[in-house]
């Protein structure tokens, strides 16, 4: 029956929700692992899948496999708030995130897969005199790095986001904001699936439910991985396992300066569109956007302690919502529909670790902390380069594990608080 003429009287004129585009008939091939590969990627999250895709596409390495211990992209890829931006403070960070953002801008076309990449702009609010000073520094740094960035007054912020409260009478008033118009969001699952499909189409084997339990290392050189499905030989191995990176590194006989912490996020039910921009505020801990379908997606803070439990404390959520209502009084009757936690891998300087390891032919990519989603394509790109050539790409050279021994940290802590 055609439904248009049977609308219930009370709901005439009500807004219809946005319909999602249909998925392709095939996403990826489910295959059994082969005995040997030229390269194996440990970890089937967004970064691992992107690595596999760029290995195949940029470096012609198609005899490769992605091993995922659970279900594909079920870790932080499925659990983040999908914010994409590149307006980082330090040159090294800005370069790699901007490279990533440029890849995002053509990614749907490149992969032939829609992922709701939406450059709706990212606002980062400042709430005090000193906050303004450091955000402006960020803004000036971005300008020199060729990254789009604007400084907005509270009135300009209000123009962009009419529901925001810019009254000077609140506890921490909005003093201004940086704005990156090219920043935005994307649909997280689809990003992973898009990479998985494209990689699978190029011949990459995607193998789920296969846990790496050890490495075949002889003469300080990796020859393969031991898995729950048996040993798989591999010329090269890339570890792309986020929160589980320290465990894998330990299995390979070295240590990484990573602590695994729960990071929570939440969504509301579908709501009429009220927010068309991503709004972040490190000072009052608000990270919010309204997704395409209409749900508010909010990031909360990390819990204070190490955990692999993928759940966080409820007080973190309560604190987060109190802060959100200060900025957005209209959210008062929005509801928390679902909260969840991911396990983020945090390095001492809140910057990623991508590069070679003490074991030959074994490469690592981890430490993206609270902000890895935005880096997905860029991270995969440079990791693929590193694996294929055995040496880091210009962009990930500064992010070597070695920096912790030389002291050349890239401290994004001060710059971003929780770097969503």
């Amino acid at each position, binding site marked *: 029956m055609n439904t248009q003429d049977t609308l219930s009287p009370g709901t005439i004129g009500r807004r219809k929700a946005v319909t999602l585009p249909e998925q392709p008939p095939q996403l990826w091939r489910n295959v059994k692992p082969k005995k040997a590969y030229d390269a194996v990627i440990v970890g089937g999250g967004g970064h691992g899948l992107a690595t596999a895709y760029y290995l195949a596409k940029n470096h012609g390495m198609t005899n490769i496999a992605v091993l995922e211990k659970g279900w594909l992209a079920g870790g932080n890829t499925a659990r983040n708030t999908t914010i994409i931006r590149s307006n980082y403070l330090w040159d090294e960070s800005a370069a790699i995130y901007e490279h990533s953002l440029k890849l995002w801008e053509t990614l749907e076309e490149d992969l032939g897969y829609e992922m709701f990449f939406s450059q709706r702009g990212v606002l980062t609010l400042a709430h005090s005199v000193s906050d303004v000073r450091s955000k402006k520094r960020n803004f000036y740094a971005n300008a*020199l790095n060729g990254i789009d960035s604007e400084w907005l007054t509270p009135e300009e912020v209000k123009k962009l986001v009419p529901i925001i409260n810019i009254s000077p009478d609140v506890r921490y008033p909005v003093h201004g904001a940086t704005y990156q118009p090219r920043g935005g969001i994307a649909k997280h699952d689809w990003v992973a699936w898009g990479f998985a499909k494209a990689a699978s189409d190029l011949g990459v084997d995607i193998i789920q439910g296969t846990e790496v339990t050890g490495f075949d290392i002889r003469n300080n050189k990796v020859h393969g991985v031991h898995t729950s499905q048996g040993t798989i030989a591999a010329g090269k191995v890339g570890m792309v396992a986020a929160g589980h990176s320290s465990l894998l590194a330990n299995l390979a006989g070295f240590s990484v300066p990573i602590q695994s912490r729960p990071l929570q996020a939440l969504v509301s039910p579908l709501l009429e569109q009220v927010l068309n921009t991503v709004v972040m505020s490190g000072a009052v801990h608000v990270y919010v956007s309204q997704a395409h379908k209409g749900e508010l997606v909010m990031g909360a803070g990390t819990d204070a302690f190490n955990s692999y439990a993928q759940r966080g404390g409820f007080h973190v959520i309560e604190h987060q919502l109190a802060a959100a209502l200060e900025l957005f*009084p209209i959210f008062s009757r929005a509801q928390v529909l679902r909260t969840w936690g991911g396990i983020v891998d945090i390095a001492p300087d809140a910057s990623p670790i991508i590069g070679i390891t003490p074991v030959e032919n074994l490469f690592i990519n981890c430490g993206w902390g609270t902000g890895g989603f935005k880096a997905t394509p860029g991270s995969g790109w440079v990791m693929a380069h590193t694996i294929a050539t055995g040496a880091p790409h210009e962009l990930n050279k500064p992010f070597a594990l070695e920096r912790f021994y030389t002291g050349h*940290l890239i401290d994004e802590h001060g710059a971003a608080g929780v770097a969503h």
Partner: protein
Amino acid sequence: MSEVSFSFDDKIYKGYHGEPLAAALLRNGLISITNSTYDARPRGIVGLGVEEPNVLVQLVSGTQESMLPATIIEVVEGLSARSLTGVGALPEDPGEARYDKTNHYVDTLVIGAGVAGLKAADEHLRAGREVLLIDDQPAPGGHLRHLGEEIQTELQAVLAHKNITYVKRCTAVGLYDQNYVVAIERRSDHLGNTALAKHSRIRVWHIRAERIVLAPGAFQRPLIFANNDRPGIMFSHAAATYISKYGARIFKRAVIVTVDNQGYHDAIRLHNSGVLVQGIYDARASAKGASVDAARVAGVTISFRSTVLDTVANDEGALQAVTIQNLDTKETFKVEINLLAVSGGWTPIVDLTTHIGIKPKWSEQHAAFLVNQSSDKLQTVGMLAGDFGDDDNPSAFFGPVLDNEQARHAYIDLQRDATLKDLRRGVEAGLTSIEHIKRYTTIGTAHDQGKTSGMLTIGALCQLNKESALSPADVGTLSFRPPYVPVPFVALAGRERGELSDPIRITPLHKWHVEAGAIFEDVGQWKRPWYFPKPGESMDDAVRRECIAAREGVAVMDASTLGKIDIQGPDAAVFLDRIYTNMFSNLPEGQCRYGLMCKADGIVFDDGVTTRLGKNHFLMTTTTGGAARVLAWLEEWLQTEWPDLKVYCTSVTEHISTIALVGPKSRQLLGELVTDIDLSKEAFPFMHSRETKIDGIPVRIARISFSGELAFEINVSWGHARYIWQQLWALGLPYNLTPYGTETMHVLRAEKGYIIIGQDTDGTQTPYDLNMSWIVSKKKEFIGKRSFQLPYLKAAGRAQLVGLLPEKEDEVIPEGAYITALNAQPDEHGKTMHTGFVTSSYFSPMLGRGFALALVADGLKRMDEMVSVPVGKKVLQAKICDAMFIDKENIRRD
């Protein structure tokens, strides 16, 4: 029950006080109530409680909640609601209502006041425990309430026990580690207009219990068949309850389709309420039990191995007929009805247990996932534990085999309009994990979070994989995440809003500053005067005036927010030697010294002046924002590394108020107030401290200067600060005593090149980078020293603190601006190499020009070099210089 009026979608209806809105809507004949979110299909009420997937409404009255199922709203005079199509709207009015929170510690928490929960409560009461019983219904009884039956007398007695607290309308929304439960109590919507404004509308309960008993019950399950979403298709238990208990006698003819004996129970209730039950179609091969016998006695036709295949709608889109299929012969026939009551088995409410990672186990016998937990801490009872009574006997049947056309409108998730066809597509696309199916189809992501669709998805997956004999046990359940039901932000924010969102810290002189017209800035939680404008003055005007007063006359500042730590003990001096980069053990008593401290990684993290008050007694000052951090740092080292040191640290930030009297006339003015100390530079040298009394009030005066100017810091107890301040003002008028704020403080210190941690540092500077090698002791070990040897910390090219003079004298370079080599141009990627950035920048009335501090690569070797500072479209030029701009000889401070 009294009759009341309520409004729904702007029409006035009658209902009974306290009944569910869903019941009232049905009785008023509203079968087709709303449209589905994506397919815009007509939809009506399906369920009995929070599992309701279709009829979501927005409250226009009361809490104005954005989205609630009509099944849980109690009708009350003045209730106003509007239907939604799965998309909520936010009220503009933020509301003045109060939301609060409570913490509760109890021996036993029982969740669910059905028969199982009440029995469990009884057991725990008998064991001498205090019990908190929470239940999301307006009255106890659980399932019995729907049947309209009273609970047994002995269970009623449980509720009267002195050791039980029973909270109704209170839903446990999250189960967390260590028996921690968060619950939401709805306290006012059911009172309508009689709700008192001062009462909180929703209370968030934080409950910690020694033992938790989960008795949440179960949801009835739908079945998957073609066009299973039409208004008039309901859970059998819901249909029977709305009709027999709430008198919604709007359905004349019904068919029951069932996989368990519940269908028979409900058939009898419908039959007894005067509904013509055309037949019970049972997917099982046979059935026995009291309910089956009763249905037979009532004369209801029973057909086994049959189920519903498809449905037909009338002109309004509501149910008109069903197609019944014999599962063996595949023969079909039509029955004209307007109610299809579906009993697809029970889904026990496993949600809370999955919050803490407990995996429910599939029971073929129950055709359900159960949680059997009976540890001392956590116990499950009732349907969750598999107690389905002795007359149920369900079968794991989820619906007939459907072709693709039929599957197109065979809904699994009604709220998301996700169909069997969508699910099949997902499986064909290569998805094997139920988590992928969920994300691909969006099943389980709507307001009801898959309360009824989750199990259908599992059933459908098993059906698709019949050859591999996939069982629900292999698929496993989806993980539910808190909260169990959606919770308004405003309830979780509670009272931590507005002024209470974060504590405000003020000094004892705050009121004076307010009266003097100060403009404040937030520094951490502190409110500090930023500047004191006179009428008509701009900030620049005020700051210039304040600066000149401090440099040429006398000015006063409230420095009370400085962090202060009292450090005592025989090893205090040794301790400070290890903490600070410079030496403190050789500081004579009664003298002060500036110190810098680093983290173990060699990076500067705080600074301040510490005064030796006695042999074993120091008073450390820290930055305003760093006070708590530094105290924690000191304690960590004392307690976890150097327990042999006898040192005691006490925060005295809010014990001692500090008043900085600054300027060439400060000595003269102070001399009028303090007569028993010789304030001359010879008798009271720079960086010395003296104790005395003013009008009997003990004060400690120190010759500390953060401006390079002659200055005295008066330290006095917090409570006496205002008195001393007023005495200064009483004498200060002839001196044109001027109050100044943090901005002027910044200008004055920057003119002398004194750093502010966090402004001129960003967490990457060593003392050497700050041109402070003079403060790094070569003679002793201290925290961070080893790190100075790391290659990068001693490498060439590090950013170093220098001064910067803009080429144009009236120019003030924006703080944070980046510095490039002179006339540097962008490369082909639009990037311009920089060489540092401006940390502090002001106009100096003394210099009559703008000046800045900056961190510049190898800056100390680049004196007098001209550099560019691109600022937007403009490019400023500036000269690198020493970071001390006035009085390099330090004459003024004496």
